[in-house]
């Protein structure tokens, strides 16, 4: 169906369901309960980030997962995408369509140039080249060096670029919305459904991004299964044989790099469309590192892994970092005082301001024990169950990594 085989189709449907039903799935606990206050993640801003970073990492996975080329500067494309989108808001109007189109195009142009140069080297030399380009772009944006050279504000430095009331906005009519919108459909307007102790929020912006995620995911399956996907995996497997098979690997690599850069640009454009402000820090090397971490955590080279990885990191960043000691004390309030204090003391370093520690440990554990990421972990658990059920160990050949 849709040109996918059954297995891929199932996966695609799963992602569609996850994306569309996220407001329910991410709000499992009643809103006002202690668990709900701590662990519910179904509010628009975070759901948007889940899908937008999902798109970003899906794109990154097309490069790293298929070809094995580890780009340490991918956040730069996210950044230029955002800057392009905000400039569209400033110059034209708050309509997101030109903004997103331009962000993809600009990220594409940057990735053609950087990819063309960086792909002349491989291995760690490629990684360092991408890192160097990205850090350069970060510095230029952070101190607005390009703007200074040209005599106007291009990135607005560390403060970040945002829309001011006196910006041209030439397509802006008198009744045009003053927040990002899709032909009048405002991104930040929402509908809340209160039922029982739950309240579910359905926001235009989230669903707009979710549709992009679904499209991006579909496209990524098609690329994985296409002859080009095959070629890219072959490049990862054996470059020597590739060239002695008469195949010029450069165009394939560049195509993968540019596609993945454009995915990042799309993600950047969407970020700006959800929240019309952008800054240079989006391009800092640690942001690129975070993309790598997301991909690895979920499972590199798998289809669904990137979405999972992005979700987990964003969840940790936004949920675990907000848990503080008084919340812990509430949880353990039924326990004796001493036990309460002991437990809180033990957990304390890993929550709130210590969420980086949790992330670091989780990440190490995944790299050490599950090189295939959480997807591999899921497969292992799934296998265990299947064994128990059917006791049919002789499964024969495993299907190749997807």
């Amino acid at each position, binding site marked *: 169906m849709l040109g*996918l*085989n059954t297995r891929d189709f199932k996966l695609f449907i799963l992602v569609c369901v996850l994306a569309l039903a996220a407001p329910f799935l991410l709000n499992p606990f009643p809103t006002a309960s202690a668990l709900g206050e701590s662990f519910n993640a179904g509010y628009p801003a975070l759901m948007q980030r889940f899908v937008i970073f999902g798109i970003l990492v899906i794109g990154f996975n097309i490069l790293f997962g298929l070809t094995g080329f580890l780009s340490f500067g991918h956040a730069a494309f996210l950044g230029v995408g955002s800057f392009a989108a905000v400039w569209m808001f400033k110059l034209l109007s708050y309509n997101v369509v030109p903004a997103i189109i331009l962000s993809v195009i600009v990220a594409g142009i940057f990735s053609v140039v950087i990819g063309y140069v960086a792909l002349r080297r491989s291995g760690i030399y490629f990684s360092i080249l991408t890192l160097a380009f990205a850090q350069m772009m970060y510095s230029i944006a952070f101190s607005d060096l390009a703007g200074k050279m040209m005599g106007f504000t291009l990135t607005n430095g560390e403060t970040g670029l945002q829309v001011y009331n006196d910006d041209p906005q030439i397509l802006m009519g008198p009744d045009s919305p003053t927040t990002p919108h899709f032909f009048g459909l405002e991104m930040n307007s929402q509908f809340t459904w209160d039922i029982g102790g739950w309240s579910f929020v359905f926001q235009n912006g989230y669903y707009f991004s979710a549709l992009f995620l679904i499209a991006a995911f579909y496209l990524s399956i098609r690329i994985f299964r296409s*002859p*080009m996907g095959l070629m890219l995996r072959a490049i990862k497997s*054996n470059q020597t044989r590739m*060239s*002695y098979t008469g*195949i010029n690997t450069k165009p394939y690599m560049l*195509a993968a790099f540019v596609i993945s850069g454009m995915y990042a640009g799309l993600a950047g454009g969407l970020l700006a469309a959800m929240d019309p402000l952008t800054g240079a820090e989006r391009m800092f090397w640690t942001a690129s590192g975070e993309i790598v971490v997301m991909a690895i955590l979920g499972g590199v080279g798998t289809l669904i892994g990137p979405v999972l990885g992005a979700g987990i990191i964003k969840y940790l960043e936004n949920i675990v970092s907000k848990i503080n000691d008084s919340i812990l004390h509430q949880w353990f309030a039924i326990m004796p005082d001493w036990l309460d204090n002991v437990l809180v003391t033990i957990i304390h370093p890993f929550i709130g301001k210590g969420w980086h520690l949790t992330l670091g440990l989780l990440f190490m554990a995944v790299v050490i024990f599950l090189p295939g990421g959480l997807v591999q972990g899921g497969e292992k658990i799934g296998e265990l169950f299947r064994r128990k059920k059917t006791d049919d160990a002789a499964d024969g050949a495993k299907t190749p990594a997807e």
Partner: protein
Amino acid sequence: MGILEVKGINKRFGGLQALGDVNLSVAENTVHAIIGPNGAGKSTLLNVLVGKLIPDSGSVMFDGQSVLGRKPHEINQMGISRVFQTPEIFADLSVFENVLIPCFAKRDGSYKLQGIGAVSGHGDVHDMAEAILADVNMLDKRHMIASSLSRGDKRRLEMAMCLVQEPKLLLLDEPTAGMARADTNNTIDLLKEIKEKRDITMCIIEHDMHVVFSLSERITVLAQGMPLVEDTPDNIKGHPKVREAYLGEAQV
């Protein structure tokens, strides 16, 4: 005029003369062996032929066109395929996918950024790949991951990947290195079969004289980067210079 004409090739690595004034002419549709003791420059010569190394001087003409200065993939597209000493295959991919790639290369040239159509949508390529797998009796292993194949099967897979491109010239770098006698004989049979079935020129580098004499129609002997003799197998067998070069190396 042979299909491959090598004239006056020189290659130095620092102070070492790896190839000195090498001439070689391989006639179309023959099997030509290049032999010589270790360090004779056989591998260097092969690397020059496939574009991995650029010689300091000399010319390499294939099918009337110069090979020099072209990238390996361009040389392959001219019709030269190479089999390596340790099989170079796509270890992470399935056997079938391994064969698909040269099929695409054959059909689409150096590169063609395909749309997002599924691989299975390309029926012609599919059939081509299935046919060659059937040819080398590996159809039943099509779903296996290449790295899990036996050494012999890896060799056959690599051979299949080269043959499916229907090269005019097949370069074989010690195709039986490290093989047991039985496997070696199988390989000889396989190569003979290939030769019988299609119009193909082969150029073999080989240590195993049993293989060389079973297959080749002409032999070039290299020693210390210089071409020593070129002749038919029968004449090479008793040649005193060859004996001298191989002293202690191998029984001739």
